[in-house]
């Protein structure tokens, strides 16, 4: 069968799918193809394997920078598009955000030294998704690239990432911020509302302290106050990224495997993308085991190992057919399971070469 032409990709391609299906490798392969077709391309990834980093030659580079990938001397037919890669480091990106947008040195130090911020930047589970939004904005705003291929964070459904821009806007509009921004505490650290009540107020303080901890409330209030000048910018950028993810210039590529239990997930994801107004391009069924040559039924083979391999071929074949039925009218394709992850750009190139369209 004739190989697929991947030259129809829009300026932003977002690769999505469940954890462990091969998103990152596919994103890198797409980026390499795009660069070799003559477009200046950036691949943004979150969690590449050591080997993929070595493959791209970006070994131990720090996160959140665009690092040029050397592709000229590897035998590829390049028309000089140029490839760059960037790894996301959420904690560092958050710090950088504060440094960039804080109005002055005092505000910056207040935030960076706040205990609540320290916990928030390091451990809140939505932070990675949020920082991905910020990074995407940053890169998009430079206008340096013809195409950006975005790998998504390793969450089971990767929906968190897509929902992040809306959630940020929603949070900033909810009134929760306004509430925390009120001057709740006096200079001496006591709650204003209760301090005027004398002894009774002290008892109320004690009660609040028992329940949620006044220290925590003080840290939170201080954090939000220190952050206030930054909120407007957060909101504006989140709205813009939300719009970008729904625009004509963005296409999603959904990666899945064909194990029976994964099929409902793939279908669910395809539907959710559509419901949320995103454009779904190809669905890629990855890691397909080939059918056994003799086509003899797996359970009739003698060797137990052969039975397993035969079964995997049968499973993936019927999984692929089922996926074709479920995704009627969509562009579906399959990439066979590779013996090993690509170790060099030649191997990475082969990933897309082995892609074959599947009738839906």
């Amino acid at each position, binding site marked *: 069968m004739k190989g697929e032409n991947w030259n129809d990709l829009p300026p932003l391609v977002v690769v999505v799918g469940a954890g462990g299906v091969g998103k990152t490798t596919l994103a890198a392969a797409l980026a390499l193809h795009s660069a070799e077709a003559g477009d200046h391309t950036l691949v943004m990834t979150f969690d590449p394997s050591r080997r993929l980093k070595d493959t791209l030659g970006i070994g131990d580079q720090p996160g959140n920078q665009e690092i040029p990938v050397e592709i000229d001397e590897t035998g590829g037919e390049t028309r000089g598009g140029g490839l760059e890669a960037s790894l996301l480091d959420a904690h560092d990106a958050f710090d950088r955000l504060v440094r960039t947008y804080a109005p002055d040195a005092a505000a910056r130090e207040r935030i960076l030294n706040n205990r609540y911020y320290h*916990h928030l930047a390091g*451990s809140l589970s939505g932070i990675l998704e949020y920082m991905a939004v910020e990074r995407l904005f940053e890169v998009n705003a430079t206008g340096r690239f013809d195409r950006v291929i975005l790998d998504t964070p390793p969450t*089971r459904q990767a929906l968190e990432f897509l929902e992040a821009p809306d959630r940020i806007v929603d949070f900033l509009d909810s009134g929760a911020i306004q509430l925390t921004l009120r001057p709740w505490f006096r200079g001496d650290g006591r709650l204003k509302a209760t301090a005027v009540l004398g002894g009774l107020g002290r008892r109320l303080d004690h009660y609040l302290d028992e329940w949620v901890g006044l220290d925590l409330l003080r840290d939170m209030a201080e954090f939000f106050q220190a952050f206030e000048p930054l909120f407007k910018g957060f909101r504006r950028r989140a709205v813009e990224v939300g719009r970008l993810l729904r625009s004509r210039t963005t296409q999603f590529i959904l990666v899945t495997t064909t194990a029976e239990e994964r099929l409902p997930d793939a279908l669910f994801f395809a539907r959710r993308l559509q419901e949320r107004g995103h454009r779904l391009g190809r669905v890629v069924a990855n890691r397909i*085991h080939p059918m056994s040559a*003799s086509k003899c039924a797996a359970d009739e083979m003698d060797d137990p*190992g052969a039975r397993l391999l*035969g079964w995997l071929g049968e499973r993936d074949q019927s999984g692929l057919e089922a996926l074709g039925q479920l995704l009627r009218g969509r562009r579906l394709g399959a990439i066979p399971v590779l013996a090993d992850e690509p170790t060099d750009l030649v191997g990475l190139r082969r990933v897309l070469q082995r892609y074959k369209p599947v009738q839906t």
Partner: protein
Amino acid sequence: MSWLAGLCQRRLIVVTGKGGVGKTSIAAALGLLLSERGRSALVLEVDPRENVHRILDTAPSDGQVVTVRPGLYLQNLQPRQVVDQLIGERVKLGVLVRRILNSPIYTHFAEGAPGLKELAILGHALRLVEGETPSGPQVDVVILDAPATGHGMSMLRAPGLVSDVLQHGPVARLTTRVAELVGDPQACGIVVITLAEEMPVTEALELRSALETELGRAPELLVANALYPELPQGAAALEGLGAGLVEELGVELLTLWRQRRAINEAQLQRLRAAWSGPEAQVPHLSLSQGRDLTAELARSLSAASGEDAVP
């Protein structure tokens, strides 16, 4: 004592590993295994997309405890449900509870407060094994199908984080108890699942060192899941294979098998060098998700532990 006998004495077992390595299936198989050995076990799933009921062939849980068979239960629970339930229990006044739960400020607090959701789930597990939940079965051990490694570590880190900012009051007391439970290797076992492939093994090793440095404890068991079988003897080169096998599978599939097995062996070697402590190897099984697969996984785990199967 085998690791299985050890797990039989725990009250909480946290199962974690990289996405796509079979955490939920192994968690369910451990539940089955422990319940066969007389422990009343509940498999607790946190993923918003329910899956554990398919693995154990029951109706979906939707927040409720489902009986798989006497002594084996499952529950899919969202952290928000637990936080809401706690508010309900504490505040008691229906009108007030509804007002709190419907307020956007509460919503954002419950969604966004660092560590709160993770703590809620661990707190729920603690209350289950202590018999403190308002309803539900008597449970000896909760097997928590935790989120994938990164988020799994956030979960284990949460009690320490929250108790750091919260020193007294009822929430702080619960937090302290949860932190004690998670930090005590006699009470809580951490099981790390991996495939014998580069990325999952790297994550497993990183998780191990994070556990050691941040929580001061090691995982109890490593499960190397879905291993490709060894090739028939003498099959290092294709020429050495029986003609029947080449004919049956074809060169493409045979080559794939050999290469995949070689990767498995190299990564098992890497684990052997870097991982101390019990390890169980579980073969890739030719079964789709469901009760048969779970039972077969439980048999493999039991065999790997060196313990006799329970008739």
